[in-house]
C-alpha cells in the first residue's frame, strides 16, 4: 500500500457516551473498503453510533487511543488544516444536520458552493444529478422540516457525496431494507470508486452486516469498558 493514503486507521480507540467508555477494535480501512462498527450488545438509544461517528469524522477527539484520518492525526492539525481535511470527509448523520433555512437542493449543493465542485464542475448541476439519482428531485425545493425522516437521510447522503469524499462515515443504516436502496447504491458506488467508509451502528444488525460482507465489508466490534473517571464532557474540535 506504499504511496496510498490510508483513509482511516485506529488503535485502542475509545469513545464515551454518558459516562460509559466504549472500546473499538483496532481497524484500518483502505481505499475501496468499508467497515461496520457494531456494539457487541444492545445499547439503549442511538447515541453510541453518533459518538463513534463524531470521532471517526474528526468532530470530537477520542477519549483514548489513536486515530489517523487520510494520513493525518486530527488532533495535531490547526483549525484551518482540519477544515481542509474535513473537505475530504463525508458524514451522513442519522438525524438532523440539514440547514433549516435552506431547501433540500441548497443543502445538497452547499459544500460544492463553498468549496467548489470537484473537477471544476457546476455544484448546482452536480447536486441536481445526485438529487435525481437518490429520488430526491420532487423534494428539491422543500425545506428539511417538510420531508420525512428517510428523505432527510437520503438528502444527507447526497450532501456527503457531493465533494466525492475519500472517507465516508455513516451513522446507522438509514433507509436500508434487505436489498439496499438508491442511497446505499450511491454509497456503494462511491466506495467502488475508491472511497473508504465506516458504518456506525447503535445495535447489531445481522442482515445489514451480511449485506456489507457480501460487498467486501468487514465488521469491527466495540465493547463496553469500565466507567470513566473523567467529566464525560466531549471536546469539540
Amino acid at each position: 500500500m506504499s504511496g496510498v493514503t490510508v483513509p482511516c486507521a485506529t488503535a485502542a480507540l475509545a469513545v464515551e457516551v454518558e459516562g460509559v467508555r466504549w472500546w473499538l477494535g483496532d481497524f484500518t480501512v483502505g481505499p475501496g473498503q468499508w467497515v461496520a462498527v457494531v456494539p457487541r450488545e444492545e445499547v439503549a438509544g442511538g447515541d453510541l453510533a453518533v459518538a463513534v461517528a463524531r470521532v471517526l469524522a474528526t468532530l470530537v477527539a477520542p477519549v483514548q487511543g489513536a486515530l489517523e484520518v487520510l494520513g493525518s492525526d486530527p488532533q495535531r492539525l490547526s483549525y484551518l488544516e482540519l477544515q481542509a481535511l474535513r473537505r475530504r470527509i463525508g458524514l451522513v448523520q442519522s438525524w438532523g444536520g440539514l440547514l433549516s433555512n435552506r431547501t433540500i437542493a441548497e443543502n445538497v449543493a452547499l459544500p460544492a458552493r463553498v468549496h467548489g465542485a470537484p473537477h471544476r464542475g457546476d455544484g448546482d448541476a452536480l447536486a441536481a444529478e445526485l438529487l435525481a439519482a437518490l429520488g430526491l428531485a420532487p423534494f428539491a425545493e422543500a425545506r428539511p422540516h417538510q420531508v420525512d425522516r428517510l428523505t432527510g437521510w437520503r438528502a444527507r447522503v447526497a450532501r456527503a457525496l457531493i465533494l466525492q469524499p475519500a472517507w465516508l462515515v455513516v451513522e446507522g443504516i438509514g433507509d436500508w431494507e434487505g436489498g439496499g436502496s438508491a442511497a446505499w447504491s450511491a454509497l456503494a458506488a462511491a466506495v467502488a470508486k475508491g472511497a473508504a467508509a465506516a458504518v456506525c451502528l447503535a445495535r447489531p444488525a445481522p442482515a445489514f452486516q451480511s449485506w456489507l460482507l457480501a460487498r467486501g465489508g468487514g465488521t469491527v466490534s466495540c465493547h463496553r469498558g469500565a466507567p470513566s473517571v473523567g467529566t464525560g464532557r466531549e471536546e469539540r474540535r
Partner: protein
Amino acid sequence: MLAGVRTASFLVGFLYLSAKMLWVGRHQGPREVLREVLLQVYFTGVQGLVPVAALAVVMGVLAMAWGFAAVGPLTGGEELGRLIVLVVLGEVAPLLTAGVVLVRSATAIAAELAVMRVQREIEALEVMGISPMLHLVSPRLVGGLVALVALNVVFAVVAVTTGLAVTAWMPKGAPLAVINALWGALTPEGFLVLGGKVVVGGLGFFVIACYHGMEASSSPTDVPVAVSRAALRGLVFLVVWQAGVSLGVLWGRGL
C-alpha cells in the same frame, strides 16, 4: 466578578475570531456569506422598519409637544431644537432602536443558533469544512450592525420630521427657529458619540447573542437558556454602555 471578566474575555475572543474568519476564510464561499449578510439585513433592518418608525413618530410628537409645553412659546423654538438633538437623537434614538433590535433580532439569533446546535446543523457545517464562525456568526454581526445603523438613521429622520410637523401648531417663526437650532446643534463630536453608542452597543449585544447561541449544548433545554441570557446580558451591556458614554461626555464637559 471573576466570572464576569471570564465571560467578557470569551466575548472579546469570540468577536476576534469572527472578524479573523472574515479575512482568513474570504475564499470560502463568499457568495454564501454575502447571502447570509443580506438575509440578516432583511430580518433586522427591513422587518424592523415599522416598529422603529412607529416609535420614532411617538417620540418625535411627544418630545416636541411636551418640550413646547415646558419651555413655553416665546423661546421655545431654539430650546426645542437642542432638546430634540440632545435627548431624542442623542439618547433616546440609539437606546430605543437598539432595544427594538435586541428584542426582535438578538433573541432570534440566539434561538436560531442554539436550535442549529441542537439539530446538529452546526456540526454538519463543521464536518463539511465550512466554518460556522464565518458562515453563521460573522454575517449576523455584519448584517445586524448595518441594519442597526440604518434603523438609527430612520429613527432620527422620522422623529425629526414628525417633530417639525408638530411645530406647525406653534407660533409663527417657531418652526424655522427649531430647524436652525437643530442644524446648529449637530456637531462632529455629537456624531462621533452617537456612532460610538450605536456601533459598539450593537456589536456588543449581537456578539452576546451569537455567543450564547453557539454556546448551547445538544440539549433542547439549552435553547430558552441561550435566549434569556442573550436578552438579559445584551440589555445590561447596552444600557451600561450607552449610559457610560453619555456620562463620559457630560464629565468631559465638566458637568
